[in-house]
């Protein structure tokens, strides 16, 4: 009899890091093509528009990088946390915390102009850290499940923010539930004239390299990996598990907070309800697609930025709803999780005896 069975791998070849995400994306596109057909469009045209429109002109290309900026930050935030098996689903809330801090600091008239941008960056990172430390303390102190707390704190922060925006923090000039604009001096410098490419993009790239350096070359990165892989052995080896998880949460929250700082300082100049269309959650998909490799986060974030910006062009040209972009995001997480199994197992078709 012939059968397919899964066998444990002794080691995972390096090229799997490249092949698996590509295979997952390919499978996602095949699966999602059914939806395009249902919407009555040509699959090929729809995908061409989806992928190529965002890369077709220099302007669109830059816009894609602008979109990728917060995604790189949230992807890194999730990467660091997941490496330590601190299941931070709360990058969304930490992003908003960072954004609020940046918008608050950026609007302070009393501060000297030159200090605004650095203070926004520091303050935003700090706010994100604090919002991530809350569930980390609950986890290390009282063993409260981190998935639940990080997720639910997103809603606490979002609705708390909306309550402020509808009340004391409402912009008196516009009357909308938006915060007042930050000062002109607080706006992030533009890197490329006549585009929206702002300082945040540079910070995001630097952050990716910094996180990679941290994971690869510091004792903290070493201990994060050890704790994430085996809590008991790490404890036996004398690693202070609680401290490592708290430091991980601090780092993760700061990175997510910086995503919010960039959006406020470089794009919106205020906080409002639509500030983040789920960048924090997309960060989870990006981190998984990058196989928790900080450098891999950059191409994964750009991929999602392409889809998000391309979705509208596709919708205009073919009538396929923009929500396809969300379906692709969700689907690629599922296919990637399935593909990850192949790093530990290999599929084997076995033929058994006929003597």
């Amino acid at each position: 009899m012939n059968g397919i069975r899964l066998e444990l791998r002794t080691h995972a070849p390096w090229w799997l890091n490249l092949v698996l995400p590509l295979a997952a994306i390919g499978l996602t596109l095949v699966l999602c093509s059914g939806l395009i057909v249902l919407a009555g469009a040509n699959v090929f045209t729809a995908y061409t528009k989806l992928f190529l429109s965002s890369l077709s002109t220099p302007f669109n290309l830059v816009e894609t990088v602008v979109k990728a900026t917060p995604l790189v930050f949230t992807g890194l935030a999730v990467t660091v946390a997941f490496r330590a098996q601190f299941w931070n689903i709360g990058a969304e809330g930490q992003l908003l915390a960072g954004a609020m801090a940046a918008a608050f600091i950026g609007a302070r008239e009393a501060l000297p102009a030159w200090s605004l941008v650095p203070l926004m960056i520091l303050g935003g990172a700090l706010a994100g850290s604090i919002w991530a430390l809350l569930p980390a303390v609950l986890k290390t102190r009282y063993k409260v499940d981190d998935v639940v707390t990080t997720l639910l704190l997103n809603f606490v922060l979002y609705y708390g923010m909306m309550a402020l925006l509808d009340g004391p923090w409402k912009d008196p000039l516009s009357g909308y539930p938006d915060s007042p604009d930050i000062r002109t001096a607080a706006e992030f410098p533009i890197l490329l004239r006549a585009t929206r490419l702002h300082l945040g993009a540079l910070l995001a790239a630097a952050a990716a390299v910094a996180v990679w350096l941290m994971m690869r070359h510091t004792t903290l990165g070493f201990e994060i990996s050890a704790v994430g892989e085996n809590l008991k052995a790490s404890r036996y080896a004398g690693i202070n598990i609680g401290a490592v998880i708290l430091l991980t949460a601090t780092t993760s929250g700061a990175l997510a907070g910086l995503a919010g700082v960039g959006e406020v300082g470089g794009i919106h100049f205020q906080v409002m309800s639509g500030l983040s269309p789920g960048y924090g959650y997309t960060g989870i998909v990006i981190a998984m697609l990058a196989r928790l490799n900080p450098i891999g986060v950059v191409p994964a974030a750009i991929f999602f930025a392409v889809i998000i910006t391309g979705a509208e062009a596709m919708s205009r040209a073919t009538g396929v709803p923009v929500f396809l972009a969300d379906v692709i995001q969700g689907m690629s997480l599922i296919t990637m999780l399935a593909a990850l199994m192949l790093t530990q197992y290999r599929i084997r078709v076995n033929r058994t005896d006929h003597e």
Partner: protein
Amino acid sequence: MENPSLLEMRGISKRFGNVRANDGVDLTLDDGDILGLLGENGAGKTTLMNILFGVYTPDSGRIAIAGRPVHIRSSSDALAHGVGMVHQHFHLVARHTVLENLMVGQSGRGIRLDRNFILQRMREIEQRFGLHLVPSARVGDLTIGEQQRLEIVKALIRGARILILDEPTAALTPQETEGLFTALRAMASQNMGVIFISHKLNEVMTITHRVVILQQGKVAAEVLNDGSISQQRLAELMCGQECSPPSKSSARLGAVRLRMENLQTQGGARPSLKGVCLKIRGGEILGIAGVSGNGQSELADVIAGMLPPAGGILEINGKPVPRFTPRCMQALGVGRIPEDRMGTGLISALPLSSCMVLPRIQEHHFSRYGFLKHAAIRRFADQQIESFGIKAAGNQVRTGTLSGGNLQKALLARELAWNPTLLLAAQPTRGLDVAAARFVHQRFLDLRDRDGAIVLISEDLEELFALSDRIAVMYEGRIMDILDIQTATVANVGLLMAGVGGAA
């Protein structure tokens, strides 16, 4: 041949990838035979028995039972042909009773009939082989020995005539082992066949009639155990010259390295230490004997810095321990080899070099200002791989791919590299083959000769008797007695393990 053998395996071969796990193995078993199956880890014993029990199908070869060719494709096939197997790890439902466990897998009768049928079979088996069990006892409450008896009865109830036992004595007290041997002899005298797999050569010498030795998937030797062969000869047949037994010099006692006075622990469901007193000097190996679950793990956890004691005194090198953390213990010069070498000692997903420096990554040898010294880490790993002869494809290989013996060598290398004044070793040779175990033992004796003190916690009495200078026996969280090796016997250690006698 006038009478066909009970079991005949001819030319059995099985490959896994490039590895020939079995390569043309022949094996026969007659009625009334107790056959010992010996071999190093990876020699192919388990594969061969899994083929016989229907877990794997062979690539080639024939199996005949009582002269009739058979194809065994699953364990239920094996049972239908009268082949039963007792694995090292039991497959029992802890929350169910003995009777309920025996009913699992029995089909085709009504529940009431089934009950009576099984009760009747249990009585028969008790009469024939002396295997007594209480049908209404909950399996979770049984001792390891009783659980094993249940596994044997389970196989017998399903009609096994050939019984395979994989490392059956690993967790038994000497008395329980004796009871098992009595039952096995009764089976042999009633025309059954037994295949006995073990690393413990003295037991193989005691119980078997014939011994088959596998080496790299082939039958290396087959010898009659008629008194003409020595244990040393068996060891040599198995692994060549490297297994000559370690020679132990007389002890030269140094300063007191560890002192425990009335040490107590508290731990929810686990048995706790109830006033343990111990004293160990440099140049001494103190063996800790006991049936598993009598406080040895807690004792190990305290010395490793994983479990702060609830009361009593613990001094290392004459000074009280300031803080009960792994780092502090390590700083006091305690080397630690945990019982679970992969789950607690090493991290399977990390590269070997990372595992080798795991407990000391914060020290200046391996990092400075929070940055890793990769070159120093790799150099250290390479040195240890070299000096301990660890078989690994480089220092960056995933630790989980190493074999058990090499994992233990890695762990040992990591701890011994810092010249511990006190070494804690829990079950250091469990699951290792003879050559690897001898290697570990030799390193312990070397450390002892260098004035190191070793706390050796083991369930293997042969190991304890070979290495220890004194043996402390634990029972229900207490030290029953500490015996000098000159006067200790297996019998009195066994009684103490069962909670009988002692000074305490």
